């Protein structure tokens, strides 16, 4: 009897294994694109989120008044078909596309646009409590939004603000359905309704978000039936899912796996340099970096090519100045990266009289856009040792690090790692290079750089509404900042993605946003 029972149990166990083994379907369903994301989305409310991970979903569910041209960081019409800007740069008037419906059937009109911005900006708005809206300062220049008629909406700014249009193209400017916000209130972020090419269908916490084809999309229904966004936080697991066929697309591929995928015909690798800059903030207030020659010396002393090729394995390019080349229209092509020249660096340091100085260097363990900060920091430490500096590294976890660096480096450190990813050439220099952006004035100029000429150029560029004029001003600013070297310019990150070879018509955008309207499988 006992023996019989034992045998039966063994048989059942065996059958279970066989059953489980046979039942695995590795392939994803046809016409459904499964995307391996890096984290669980925080919310799908465009005004409440800050992470690029969540933007990847948002951009496919919502539209903004304007959007970035394919492959560029310049804006073109989207929900607005045209717009005019007043002479003084204070009034923007948009004509809305007619007949566009939100996924819940309500119509997109001027009142809806007004509702969206007032909800974000006006603390007395009845739905302001559905926030917080951490990036609402993108639109802090907006004084008033008026619905002139059903399809005309007018924004009045309190001062000329040239980045306004490109901020509207950023996910924070996407338009959500007021009816749905009123209906779901604080839970709108988990029940998103927009006008985009895909409608929100399902959000299973910690498993997936599904969006489905919007048959009535004003730009034409997309070829894909649905897109599934799966959060897979561990990069190795994401790669394993890609290799096993469990996902069709993955973003932020680790450099080690990228070459493996590139040599395999079943996959396609995409790379795109973006508006990202990895740099060192130098403390100009005290110590060796008060002297311009020493700052230039640091730029000469660091072997940036070795960093991008060996540590980052080609997933970044050497940076030349404060404005990333992805802003093609505003980037100064005449500037070439500081060459690696330790002899010249040593000579400059000697001339300035700072040979053998000790430097304190803040390094972070990780963080948004920080790439491989510890390895990069150590390489920089070694390069600077070759020109005679004794660099002492202090490492902090990201949030602690920001808490140390953002209030300013004075009295604490000589240099710190930093990275920024922006949507307009104005943002980074305006927030981190102006005299009026020193930390005590609420900015990010943690190294206390100050050059009245740069301040003037940046103010002017912000007020100019003509792109060609703005470009000239930014180019002039870059030349000065390159020469003054308040930062050590290290790298511009290339965003990457891998898809299975079945995925067609996919391209990465320089904005780092993931657009899937045209993709098929």
């Amino acid at each position, binding site marked *: 009897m006992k023996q019989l029972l034992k045998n039966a149990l063994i048989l059942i166990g065996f059958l*279970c294994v066989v*059953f*489980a*083994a046979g*039942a*695995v*379907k*590795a392939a994803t*369903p046809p016409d*459904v694109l*499964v995307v391996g994301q890096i*984290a*669980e989305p*925080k*919310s799908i*409310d465009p005004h409440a989120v*800050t*992470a690029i991970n969540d933007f990847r979903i948002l951009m496919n569910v919502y539209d903004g008044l304007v959007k970035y041209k394919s492959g560029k960081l310049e804006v073109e019409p989207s929900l607005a078909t045209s717009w005019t800007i007043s002479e003084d740069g204070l009034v923007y008037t948009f004509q809305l596309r007619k007949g566009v419906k939100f996924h819940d059937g309500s119509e997109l009109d001027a009142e809806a646009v007004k509702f969206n911005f007032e909800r974000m900006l006006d603390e007395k708005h009845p739905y302001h409590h559905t*926030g*917080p809206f*951490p*990036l609402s*300062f993108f639109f802090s220049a907006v004084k008033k939004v008026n619905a002139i008629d059903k399809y005309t909406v007018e924004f009045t700014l309190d001062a000329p603000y040239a980045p306004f249009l490109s901020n509207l193209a950023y996910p924070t400017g996407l338009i959500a359905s007021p009816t749905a916000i009123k209906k779901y209130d*604080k839970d709108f*972020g*988990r029940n998103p309704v927009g006008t985009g090419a895909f409608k929100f269908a399902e959000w299973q*916490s*910690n*498993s*997936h978000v*599904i969006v489905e084809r919007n048959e009535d999309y004003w730009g034409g229904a997309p070829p894909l039936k649905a897109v599934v966004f*799966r*959060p*897979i*936080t*561990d990069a*190795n*697991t994401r790669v*394993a*899912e890609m290799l*096993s*066929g*469990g996902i069709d697309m993955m973003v932020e591929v680790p450099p080690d796996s990228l070459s493996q995928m590139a040599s395999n015909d079943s996959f396609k690798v995409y790379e795109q340099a973006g508006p990202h800059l990895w740099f060192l903030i130098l403390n100009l207030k005290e110590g060796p970096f008060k002297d311009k020659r020493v700052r230039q010396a640091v730029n000469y002393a660091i072997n940036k090519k070795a960093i991008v090729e060996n540590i980052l394995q080609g997933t970044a390019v050497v940076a030349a100045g404060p404005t990333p080349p992805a802003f093609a229209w505003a980037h100064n092509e005449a500037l070439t990266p500081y060459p690696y020249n330790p002899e010249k660096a040593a000579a400059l340091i000697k001339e300035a009289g700072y040979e053998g100085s000790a430097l304190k260097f803040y390094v972070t363990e990780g*963080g*948004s*856009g920080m790439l491989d900060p510890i390895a990069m920091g150590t390489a920089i430490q070694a390069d600077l040792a070759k020109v005679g500096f004794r660099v002492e590294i202090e490492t902090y*976890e*990201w*949030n*602690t690090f*920001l*808490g140390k660096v*953002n*209030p300013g480096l004075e009295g604490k450190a000589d240099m710190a790692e930093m*990275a*920024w*990813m922006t949507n307009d050439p104005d943002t980074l220099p305006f927030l981190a290079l102006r005299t009026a952006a020193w*930390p005590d004035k*609420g900015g*990010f100029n943690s190294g206390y750089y100050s050059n009245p000429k740069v301040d003037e150029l940046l103010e002017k560029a912000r007020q100019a509404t003509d792109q060609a004029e703005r470009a000239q001003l930014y180019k002039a600013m870059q030349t000065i900042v390159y020469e003054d070297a308040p930062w050590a310019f290290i790298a511009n990150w290339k965003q990457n993605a891998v898809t299975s070879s079945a995925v067609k018509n996919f391209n990465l955008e320089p904005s780092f946003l993931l657009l899937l309207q045209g993709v098929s499988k």
Partner: protein
Amino acid sequence: MHREAIKSPPTSFEPRPHMSHRRQNICFYAIKRLVMAVPVIIGLTIIVFFIMALIPGDPATAILGSYATPENVAKLNEQLGLDKPLWEQYATWVGNMLNGDFGRSYNLNRAVIDEVLERFSATIILAGTALVLCSIFGLLAGIVSAVNQYGFVDKSVTLVVLVGISTPAFWLGLLLILLFGVQLKWLPVSGMYEIYGGGDLPDLLKHLILPASTLALVATGVIARLTRASMLDVLRQDYIRTARAKGVSDRRVIFKHAFKAALVSVIPVIGIQAGFVLGGAVYVETVFQWPGIGRMLVTAIATRDILLVQGGVLVVATCYVFFNLLADVFQNLVDPRIS
């Protein structure tokens, strides 16, 4: 949390206490422990709250990332209610909790209690399965080794157990994924259910096999080692020799007489392993993308999602206190020497 020491076995023969009297004793003991749990949980809320308040960095900085200007941080902290004095924040938090409101997660924009219970149940499924697996295999391996002491089987089992104890779970997990998920394609690489057409029990089991085995491996080793030692101890006792001399069958001697006695010292270790399995779940959940509470807490700490960390730790710790209590009561039941 306090565990009574096991008293040494009685030297002279003592009559067993009357059964109903004994049951009453256990009830009294359980109630006493339950009352003692209250200050423990109050202490927990204080520790959990102030640890989160003490670590540097704040949620506003984490949410704003590169855009965390002092001005923006102050504005967001005000919106989140973090500009108030600490004691006031603590009082609000505890007060709300007594009304059943654990607050909302800043990052997930969701009620903390919903998230915590959902994630905790996923962890219980994973850790529970692992615990059952490691208990069964650990006990079996221990008994088999003890019975064949220094034999081939004992040596092989010891070797396997040693490898098991020394293998880091996250590394083993990745190897298992590569073999069974990527190469053989027998089992899914990650997740808890299929996205399309899944959601039933076979689907769950299929997703459980790899993470649960990975998680069970170390604990299996520890339990096996201990069971072996404990069994060897018991097998040397006089009453076992007496039983054998009486002609009781080998199987009966091992399972009925020796194993039962050995179990008494193994049970507390299984209880401790339960804690380790819960802790180890953090790595395994990350590698296998299991939507459990370990992974949730790691993310929540990194993003300074204070209410989520507090709620999560509190629920897990409270459960731990009660599991401990249960284990003690259970041990009390099986071992008449403990009172």
